[in-house]
C-alpha cells in the first residue's frame, strides 16, 4: 500500500494543468469544510443579533430610499427609466451590493482565517468557496425582498425572471474573480482594502445603479465601457422583463470571467504560503 507523498521545496510546481487539477481536487475534497465554515459564520452572525437578517439588506435599502426621496422631491431629476423608479433604484443598489460584497468576500474570508492559516494546513480553496456560499445565502435573502418590490409596484411576473438567478451568479463570479486577484496584495497592505472600498464608492456613479445611462456625452461612453454596467443592467432587465440590451457584453464579461476565475484561484493558491510567512504570529 502506497502512502501519499508530499514534497515541499522552494520551487513552485508551475505546470498549470497539474496545479489546477490539484486545486479543483482540493475544492472537491473540502466540500464539507467550506460548507461548515459558511454555516459557522452565518450562525454566529445571526445568533449575536436580534435584527439578524435585516442587516443583509439594510444598506442597499437605505441607499435606494435616499435616491427615491431625491427623485420624488425633485432635488435630482432622473431621466425616465421605463419602470417605476423605486424598483429601478432598489434593484440597482441591491445588485451593486451583491457585486461589492463578492469583491470583498475572498479577502474577508482569508483575513478571518488568518490565525488558522498560520497554524493548520487545510485546503485554502475552502475559504473562497465558503465565501461564495455566504454570498449565495445573503443574495437569496435580498432577491426575496426584490421580488416583493417588483410585485408591490405592479411590474408583475415575467418568464425572464427565472433567468434572474443566473445573472446574479454571473455577478458573484465577476466579483469573486476580481476579489481573488486583489486578495494577495490586500493581505500584505491594508491600503489595498481601503482603496477598493474608496474606489467602489466612485465607481457606483459611473454604473447605472440609481440612474440610467445618459443618451449622449462622455458619461455615456464611460458607463457603456464599464464592465459592471452589463451585469447590473442585464440582471435588472431580466428581473423586470425588459429586453436585455447589453446581453452581448454581459456574455463576453462572464465568458472572460470563467478562465480568469481559475487563474485567480491558482494565483491565490501559490500566494498563500508567501502570505502566511509574512503575516504569521
Amino acid at each position, binding site marked *: *500500500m*502506497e*502512502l*501519499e*507523498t*508530499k*514534497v*515541499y*521545496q*522552494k*520551487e*513552485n*510546481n*508551475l505546470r498549470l494543468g497539474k*496545479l489546477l487539477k*490539484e486545486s479543483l481536487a*482540493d475544492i472537491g*475534497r*473540502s466540500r*464539507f*469544510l467550506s460548507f*461548515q*465554515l459558511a454555516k*459557522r*459564520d452565518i*450562525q*454566529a452572525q445571526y*445568533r*449575536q443579533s436580534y435584527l439578524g437578517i435585516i442587516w443583509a439588506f439594510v444598506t442597499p435599502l437605505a441607499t435606494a430610499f435616499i435616491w427615491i426621496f431625491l427623485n420624488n422631491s425633485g432635488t435630482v431629476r432622473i431621466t425616465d427609466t421605463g419602470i417605476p423608479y423605486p424598483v429601478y433604484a432598489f434593484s440597482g443598489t441591491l445588485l451593486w451590493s451583491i457585486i461589492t460584497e463578492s469583491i470583498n468576500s475572498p479577502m474577508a474570508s482569508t483575513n478571518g482565517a488568518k*490565525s*488558522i*492559516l*498560520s*497554524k*493548520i*494546513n*487545510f*485546503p485554502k480553496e475552502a475559504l473562497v468557496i465558503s465565501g461564495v456560499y455566504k454570498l449565495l445565502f445573503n443574495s437569496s435573502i435580498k432577491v426575496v425582498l426584490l421580488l416583493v418590490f417588483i410585485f408591490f409596484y405592479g411590474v408583475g411576473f415575467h418568464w425572464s425572471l427565472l433567468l434572474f438567478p443566473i445573472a446574479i451568479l454571473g455577478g458573484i463570479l465577476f466579483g469573486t474573480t476580481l476579489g481573488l486577484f486583489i486578495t*494577495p*496584495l490586500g493581505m*500584505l*497592505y491594508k491600503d489595498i482594502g481601503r482603496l477598493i472600498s474608496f474606489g467602489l464608492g466612485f465607481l457606483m456613479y459611473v454604473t447605472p445603479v440609481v440612474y440610467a445611462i445618459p443618451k449622449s456625452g462622455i458619461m455615456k461612453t464611460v458607463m457603456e465601457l464599464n464592465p459592471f454596467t452589463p451585469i447590473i443592467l442585464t440582471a435588472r432587465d431580466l428581473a423586470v422583463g425588459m429586453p436585455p440590451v447589453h446581453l452581448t457584453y454581459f456574455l463576453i464579461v462572464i465568458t472572460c470571467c470563467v478562465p480568469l476565475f481559475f487563474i485567480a484561484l491558482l*494565483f491565490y493558491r*501559490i*500566494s498563500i*504560503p*508567501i*502570505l*502566511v*510567512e*509574512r503575516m*504569521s504570529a
Partner: protein
Amino acid sequence: MENLTDNRQQTTDNRQQTTDNRQQTTDNRQQTTDNRQPNMPNNEVLVQVQHLSKKFCKDLKTSLWYGVKDLASGLSGNQNERELRPQEFWAVKDISFELRRGECLGLIGHNGAGKSTLLKILNGLINPDAGKVTIKGRVGALIELGAGFNPILSGRENIYNNGAILGFTKKEIEEKVEEIIDFAEIREFIDMPVQNYSSGMKVRLGFAVAAQMEPDVLIIDEVLAVGDLGFVLKCFKQIDTLLPNTAIVFVSHSMPMVSRICNQIILMEKGKAVFQGEDVGKAIDKYYTRFVDNDSNVVFDDGSIAYESVEILEAKAYEKNIPQIEWGNTFKLKFKFRKNTLNEPPAFYISIFDKEQRPVAILEPNIEELDSKNDSNLIEFIVEHKNLQLSKGIYSLNIVVSKKTNNEPLLRMNGILSFQVLHQTDTWPPFLLKSSFQSI
C-alpha cells in the same frame, strides 16, 4: 507485534478512502520509491528533510515589500538560489534529518531558535528557501488546538468546525462526536457557548477532536502546556498509544517530557542544529548548559554579614568555568564571609537546586560556631559531603544565613555556584543511589 501491524494495516486502509492530499504533491520520479512488503511498514522513512533553510525579515515594511516581490517571482517559479537580502536572517539553516515510523524527534532550543519555523515548513504552511522535505502519509499537527472555534457557538457545534478544518468528513465527526465529548470530559457544558469556557476547557475540547486523527506523521508544538495535570497525563497517554505507529516531531521546553518520548534530538540555536543525535541525555545537558548563568543574586540582605566567595575544592575539571565532579566523590565547598555588624553566631543552610530550579537537597547546617582563626571579621569554612549521589547533570547552590538562636534570616542568595556531576548513565530522578543486588 503481529497483531499490531495487522491493526495498523486496517486503519491505514480505512484512511486511504478519506485521505486528503492537500498539498502540491510532486510527481513520483523525485522519490526513490521502494516496493517493500506491505506487512512490514515499520522501518520506512516517513519524514525526510534535506538541507532545509528558511529566511525571515526583521523589519515589517521591508518584509511586506519582499512579500510583494516574492508574489511576483512566485508566479514565475522562482528557481534562483536564494541569498539573504538586506534585513534578512536565516531562521532555519541547513537542517537535515530522517524519521521512521515509531521514532520520535525532539526539537529543543531556546525561544526564537527556529523550532516553530521548522514545524511550519514540515506542516506545509510555508515554503522553504532551500532544501527539501519529503513526507509520506497523513500528517497531523498539534500546533494549535481548537482551530476554527467560534466563541459564540456551542461546544458541540465547534466540534464540527474544528473537525472540518482538521480534515474529517461529516460522517466521521458524527460517529465520533460522543467519544470526543467524553474524552474532553465536558459533557455538562457541551451546549454552552465556547466563549464561556475556561482556556483549559477549550484546550481539552480541541485536543479531544485532534486525538481522533490517525496520522502517520504527527507534529506537536507546545500545545499541551495548558490544561490541568490530569489532562496533560491523558494527552501523553494518547500520544503513547500513537507512538509505535507514528513518526513524531515534538517541540517542547519540558525536558522530562522530551526525554520520556524522544529517541533522537536536534538542539537548535539561531536556526542551526548545534547538536543532533540519538544521545538524548547529552543533548539535554547541552541545552541546560546554555541556560547556566553565573550571576548570583541576593534575595535578602540585612547588611550584617557579607558573602565573599565560594569554590569547589578538588574539582575534576572545568568546562566553561563550571566545575565538574565525579558521581560518588566527595563534595567539598570552601566558603568565605565577612562579618559587618553581626554579633551572634550564624547558621549556614546550603541547598542544591537542579537545572529546572527544583530544590533537590539541603546540606545539614553547621552545629558549631565558625570563625576564622586569623581575622576576626572573616568567617571561612569548608563543608564536606562524602559520596555525592546526585545524578548526572548541572546543579546550582543557594545559601541562607540566619541567626543560630532564633533562625532570623540575615542573608539569602540564589545561584552562588553552578557545578556539574559526571556519570556515564542518564538518570531522570535527581539522585542515583549506590546500591548492590544479591540473589537469594
